């Protein structure tokens, strides 16, 4: 009985302890209605553990039941759009009604982090902000860090090792291939996304019929940068000597109108004309016959280390877009520059096995560039119809002056104005499943060059010379028209395309080498009056077979070429008629959407150009006379190239391997003959073969965890050929191997690091002769560290180390270092740059040409300190956009 009583007591106590029930309803002010979905939790006073929880029903009613030994417990009430409330209640069952007042509590938001790279069908999207560091100013700085995208020294952009075929801003091609103007000036902060559109066909009417494996880039601006004038102005001064670097940039983008205008001027070694380079492939200007002053080639160090300039560049780019895909472009560029170079060159030529000819020269030159180019383009690019009419003009009024010192100093004076006028018309029209294309390019080109050398030392000329000053005049005038018409249609998996074309070209070359005071009447051997008339008619059937994964392309152009060459002084009169069949096969296999294999086989015969058949002597520079055989070069080229591409945007992994091998047969062999230290270029009629192979690989991997990109480039090339030197016949092979790992990362918010290493080795072997050339080994290390002590301040240090193994004079290793800081105050950027800290004043390179070597020492810019202020101005946003 006692036990029972005890049990009952215990049970009662237990029950009171375990069965606390709180219930009631939650109502909201001001209408005092029950609220559903309100969270109720019961917690201890310390609030660290949840005893029980519930939510209110539709009526606002709630009920919680719990067990606790505590005297007082808290009821926590919270809901979206409601105030949070905590009420402490005694631990016994009770009814509690609670009134809440609405309160727009802002929840702690979490910004969605989209992946840095995402793919939507054929388009890869790179989020610019995710790749931008505090020190990155322009979109070009950021493009370099995006995996899969490569930016070359000259500014051209490659995707998967292939040059892009279009660079759009807001889906429109404002700059027409001079996209350096955009990459070097548009601020990264104004760009939302960089899109890579794979297999991009720029002509919409060809989208379903002509496949391309090239990609295009589209720059998508942020909304804040659209519909307003965005302008930047920079003022920069520095020492030593007195340095200036000023810029003015303005852009405006809205749906029907695009504009970018720039002015850049400096004497700090930055070439503003580099931005005007046309970077689309197949658009390079034709090479014409050029006289030159003796100048060494460019050294492998950054241009701003050796370029002494005074440059001004203006670029005006306008685009108007109208309804029905019509577009008008006007692009004008002007460049004025004075460039000075100084170098010491040591050139060696093995005349025979034992006999080495060495030339040492001290070279200095001043080049004055005065260049204008303009283009007006009207374009309709609709789904069924494409029309393009483009008129362009290029004018150069350049002069150069140089002094070369071997034993005596020689003064060279060159003026070489040239003009090019070109009209281009294209038409594409769809008829049902058929396609009609028409294209016509007419081009007029004229250059008048004059080189004055004082004094000349060619034994050939100096014997007759009184004053020793000789003038070389050269006029090269060309007119050409290229027209083609094609018709194609689709038959299920087959596509046929038949093209017929005609090309006409007339070229006149006049040259005259004579003594300055004309005391000596130059003979016919120093003159040329060449007239070149070429006509080509061709027919090209082209077949494409397409299945889901395979793509097979076969084309067999049949060409009839007719050529007439007449030269007055050397009594040259030749007519050549040739029939060429130049077949090619292209095979592409898409293993899966991320992997692709391709193979290309071709055979091609071509006839040489007029500048290779100059029978009269031309003085090309102060120590080279040139004359060709009276025979025309005929080349037969056979080649094979293969590639493997892998791109996985999910893993940010891009791999590309390609190899190209070419066999070239030529009927002529060109050779330099030496005559008392002076070269004469001569062509011999001797059928010969050469072989070249290029292997290149590139791997790039983005590592999201450390916000970094790692790339690795490796290459091998071999050139085998035959040469004649001093009437002796040689076979030689030239090989290079290069290897370049690079990385960039921002693994902590306050620091970013970028570095690269380049190893290269080149060797030249002449068969039958023991190794006279040791391989040239070069190393280039570059690294850059950026510190971000605050959001406004960036401090950087950069270092470059060049090492050339085969230099016997001077130092093999050269170091360069730069440092600087950037501070942002509101919309003003302050920059301080101290370049070439070690004040390295010269740089020596070594390289080989055919069977000789060349070691050049360049004069570099000294240490310099620059201060720049940059204002970022922005118009007010208009709401009509």
């Amino acid at each position, binding site marked *: 009985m006692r036990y029972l009583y005890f049990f009952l007591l215990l049970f009662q106590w237990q029950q009171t302890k375990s069965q606390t029930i709180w219930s009631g309803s939650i109502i909201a002010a001001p209408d005092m209605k029950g*609220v*559903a*979905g*309100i*969270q*109720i*939790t019961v917690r201890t006073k310390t609030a*660290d*553990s*949840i005893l029980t*929880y519930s*939510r209110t*029903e*539709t009526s606002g009613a709630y009920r919680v039941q719990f067990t606790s030994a505590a005297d007082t417990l808290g009821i*926590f009430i*919270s*809901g*979206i*759009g*409601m105030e*949070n409330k905590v009420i402490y209640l005694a631990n016994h069952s009770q009814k509690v009604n609670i009134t809440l007042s609405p309160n727009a509590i*802002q*929840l*702690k*938001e*979490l*910004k*969605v*982090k*989209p992946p840095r790279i995402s793919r939507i*069908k054929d388009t890869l999207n790179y989020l610019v902000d995710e790749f931008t560091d505090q020190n990155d100013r322009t979109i070009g700085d950021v493009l370099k860090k995006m995996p899969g995208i490569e930016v070359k020294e000259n500014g051209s952009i490659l995707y998967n090792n292939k040059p892009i075929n279009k660079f759009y801003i807001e889906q429109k091609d404002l700059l027409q291939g001079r996209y350096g103007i955009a990459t070097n000036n548009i601020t990264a902060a104004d760009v939302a996304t960089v899109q890579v559109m794979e*297999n991009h*066909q720029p002509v919409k009417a060809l*989208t*379903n*019929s002509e*496949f391309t494996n090239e990609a295009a880039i589209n720059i998508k601006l942020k909304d804040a940068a659209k519909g307003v004038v965005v302008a930047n102005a920079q003022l920069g001064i520095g020492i030593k000597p007195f340095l200036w670097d000023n810029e003015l940039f303005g852009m405006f983008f809205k749906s029907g109108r695009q504009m970018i205008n720039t002015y850049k001027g400096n004497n700090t070694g930055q070439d503003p004309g580099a931005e005007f380079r046309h970077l689309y492939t197949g658009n390079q200007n034709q090479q014409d016959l050029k006289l030159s002053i003796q100048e060494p080639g460019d050294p492998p160090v950054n241009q701003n280390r050796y370029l002494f300039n005074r440059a001004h560049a203006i670029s005006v780019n306008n685009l108007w877009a109208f309804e029905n895909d019509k577009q008008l472009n006007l692009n004008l560029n002007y460049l004025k520059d004075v460039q000075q170079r100084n170098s010491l060159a040591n050139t060696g030529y093995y005349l025979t096995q034992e006999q080495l000819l060495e030339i040492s020269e001290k070279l200095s030159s001043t080049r004055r560039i005065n260049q204008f180019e303009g283009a007006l383009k009207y374009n309709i690019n609709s789904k069924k119809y494409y029309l393009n009419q483009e008129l362009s003009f290029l004018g150069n009024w350049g002069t150069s002056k140089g002094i070369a010192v071997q034993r005596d100093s020689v003064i060279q004076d060159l003026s070489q104005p040239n003009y090019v006028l070109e009209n281009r018309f294209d038409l594409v029209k769809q008829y049902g*499943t058929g396609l009609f294309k028409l294209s016509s390019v007419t081009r007029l080109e004229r250059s008048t060059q004059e080189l004055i050398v004082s004094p000349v030392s060619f034994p050939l000329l100096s014997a007759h010379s009184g004053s020793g000053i000789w003038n070389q005049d050269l006029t090269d005038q060309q007119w050409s028209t290229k027209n083609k018409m094609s018709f194609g249609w*689709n038959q*299920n998996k087959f596509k046929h395309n038949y093209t017929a074309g005609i090309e006409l070209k007339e070229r006149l070359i006049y040259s005259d080498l004579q003594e300055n005071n004309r005391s000596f009447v130059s003979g016919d051997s120093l003159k040329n009056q060449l007239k070149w008339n070429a006509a080509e008619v061709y027919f090209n059937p082209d077949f494409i077979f*397409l299945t*889901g*994964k395979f*793509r097979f392309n076969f084309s067999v152009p049949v060409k009839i070429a007719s050529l007439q060459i007449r030269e007055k002084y050397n009594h040259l009169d030749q007519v050549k008629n040739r029939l060429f069949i130049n077949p090619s096969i292209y095979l592409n296999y*898409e293993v*899966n*959407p991320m992997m692709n294999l391709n193979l290309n086989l071709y055979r091609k015969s071509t006839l040489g150009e007029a500048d290779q058949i100059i029978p009269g002597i031309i003085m090309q520079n102060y120590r080279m006379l040139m004359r060709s055989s009276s025979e025309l070069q005929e080349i037969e080229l056979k080649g094979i190239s293969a590639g493997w591409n892998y791109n996985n945007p999910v893993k940010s992994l891009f791999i590309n391997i390609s190899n190209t091998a070419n066999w070239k047969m030529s009927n002529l062999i060109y050779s330099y003959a030496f005559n008392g230290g002076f070269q004469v270029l001569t062509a011999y009629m001797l059928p010969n073969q050469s072989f070249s192979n290029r292997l290149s690989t590139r791997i790039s991997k983005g590592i999201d965890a450390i916000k970094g990109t790692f790339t690795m480039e490796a290459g091998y090339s071999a050139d085998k050929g035959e040469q004649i030197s001093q009437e002796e016949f040689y076979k030689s092979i030239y090989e290079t191997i290069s290897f370049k790992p690079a990385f960039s990362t921002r693994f902590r918010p306050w620091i970013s690091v970028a570095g690269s290493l380049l190893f290269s080795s080149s060797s030249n072997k002449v068969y039958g002769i023991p190794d006279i050339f040791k391989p040239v080994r070069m190393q280039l290390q570059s690294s850059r560290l950026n510190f971000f002590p605050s959001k406004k301040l960036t401090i950087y240090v950069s270092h470059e180390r060049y090492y050339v193994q085969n230099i016997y004079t001077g130092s093999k290793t050269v170091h360069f270092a730069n440092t600087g800081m950037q501070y942002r105050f509101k919309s003003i950027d302050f920059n301080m740059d101290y370049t070439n800290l070690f004040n390295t004043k010269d740089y020596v390179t070594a390289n080989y040409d055919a069977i000789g070597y060349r070691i050049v020492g360049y004069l570099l810019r000294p240490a310099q300190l620059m201060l720049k202020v940059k204002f970022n101005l922005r118009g007010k946003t208009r709401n009509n956009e």
Partner: protein
Amino acid sequence: MIKSSIIAVLSCFVFISASAQQNVKTTQDQSQAEENTKHKAPFGESKIKCYYEFTRSSTTSSSRRDTLVLETGAEKSRFYDPSRQYRDSMVRASMNIPNPETIKSISVFKSENGKDLSTMQGTVSSRTDEGESYQIFKDLNTGKIKVVDYTAVNGKSFEYEDQAGPMDWKIQQVPDTIINSYSCKQARLNFRGREYTAWFSPEVPINDGPWKFMGLPGLIVKVEDSHQLFSFSLVGLEQTKMPLPIHIPAGSIKCSRADFEKMKIKQAPGMQVNFSFGNLILAEFPGETNYIPMELK
């Protein structure tokens, strides 16, 4: 004439891929159905949009990540995969040829004699193993769920009801952890054959979560199963400026969860459509789908 033959061909194809279903119509019906929903009364409204990264292991390839969205209010919610819905709507739209008279030929490829059209210009496609096709509609008051899903992108959609709640969560007495800046408590659940661990945050006063999960006193920030085959974690949260209506698409065939799971296991690996120069190609991706269900019973 041509139009009717297209419909016939399309119907055949749908018949092949939609496995056991007999009563099938063209894709146009489905888009029509989606149109209709716009005029119906909404299922509920959402005030918060949550983005979850869903990692799903697969037997065939490495694990896959997708971003799924939970639109939730105090009472009702919708959970779905916006990119999958977008891809599938693209495939459906590309089958609706505006001028059927331009069609010259139609080729249809089943998954056995697989075709990959991805290299062809203008191909739109949707893979079954990429992303999630389901849309989950929850009533948080009653714990009742409606799932709208399909097994073939061009096929009929199905709808089943599921009494998933109340879920028997066990709140763990472990110290709070901070996940993505939210202070979280841990809870465990045994649900339909799998053990789950969830981290929820009372800071977000909503008892909702990804997929079918709900019923904790705070938003589920992370949840994964004991074998780590499935994992959802919150990567984004935003409050909408105004409450947004939640609609359930109409015109789906009602069935049971068990029936739908049976069909899902048999689904084809996905669909590609290419229409160029009058040639319409419909192709299933080659191979088979390895579907690992989250619910084992």
